[in-house]
């Protein structure tokens, strides 16, 4: 449940953002949750629901979570395959087992709507 501490970090950031933009209310938050980030989207949302309810700035805001795709590059032949995060068993072209994931390992605050 490290998602709770990440939500706390998000609320701090939203507070700074609101101050910088002289906004009093956050309406909508769009985030990217990489499938390899070690963050469980459901747990993040659960943590957000609990913590945002106690935060005047963020209470009632809509949280949109987007899951980016991951591209796996074959370490032998360079063939790429894009998945929703799941690691392919092997390279479809040369059967190499070691495929290097690119992207999908971050948790990114993309956009905030405020008023």
């Amino acid at each position: 449940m490290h998602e709770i501490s990440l939500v706390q970090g998000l609320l701090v950031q939203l507070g700074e953002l609101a101050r910088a933009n002289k906004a009093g209310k956050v309406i909508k938050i769009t985030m990217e949750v990489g499938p390899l980030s070690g963050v469980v989207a459901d747990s993040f949302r659960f943590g957000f629901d609990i913590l945002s309810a106690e935060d005047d700035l963020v209470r009632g805001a809509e949280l949109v979570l987007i899951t980016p795709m991951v591209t796996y590059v074959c370490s032998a032949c360079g063939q790429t395959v894009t998945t929703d995060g799941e690691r392919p068993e092997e390279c479809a072209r040369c059967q190499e087992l070691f495929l290097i994931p690119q992207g999908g390992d971050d948790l990114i605050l993309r956009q905030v709507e405020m008023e």
Partner: protein
Amino acid sequence: MCDSCGCPSPSDHNHDHTHDHGHTHNHSTSTTKTVDVHTSLFAANDALAKTNREHFEEIGAVALNLISSPGSGKTTLLEYTIEALKGEINIAVIEGDIETERDADRIRAKGVPVIQLTTGGACHLDAAMTHRGFHQLQKQPGGDKIDLLFIENVGNLVCPATFDLGEHERVVLVSVPEGPDKPAKYPKAFTSSHTFLITKTDLLPYFDFPVPEASAEALQLNPHLRVIDLCASKGGEGFETWLGYLRELVANMRGRAK
């Protein structure tokens, strides 16, 4: 200066600022405002981890982050490692647990500087906690002369894998009784680590733990992983390989310092 405590940071000249507030796009009506941010929520932790790494290097210490489930033998490994390298390498330990000073007491009994961080419920250490722990450690006798700093994370194979503490190498441990399927079940702990230790190998006769299969599975996730199987309490070849690995890390850091 450090973000957390204001201590002078080695990277004062080129500090990476993570507070990217983004620019304002007014896509909308007069009352609402949409701001494109594109900031990683890991950025604050990663920036502080970088500061930690510089702090460690400033005093010539190489830092290892130990990750495993509870009961894999992290503290026992440290006890035997400290004993084996006594008089040769100056070791210090930051202990992470949810509650109690018990692990720190065990390490303190070995006569090396140790700090216990109790997270009070949190399932992992982060760079800020490590930062505070390191400064406390430096105030202890012997805390100014550290070659090798072990950071024993909270027992958990999931959450600690996400947080850089500023370590130079990450070590993941799996003990024989836990079973060989941990790399497949908890991939991030293995893809983010440098070294994989299979511990309690004296129990191999009693458990179904095919060492070659477990290491092959881990190597498929991360071919750069160094795999060592050992029994800390009995010593032997695997434990010597572990000590050799630590000696090499310390020698490399000393080489860099010169």
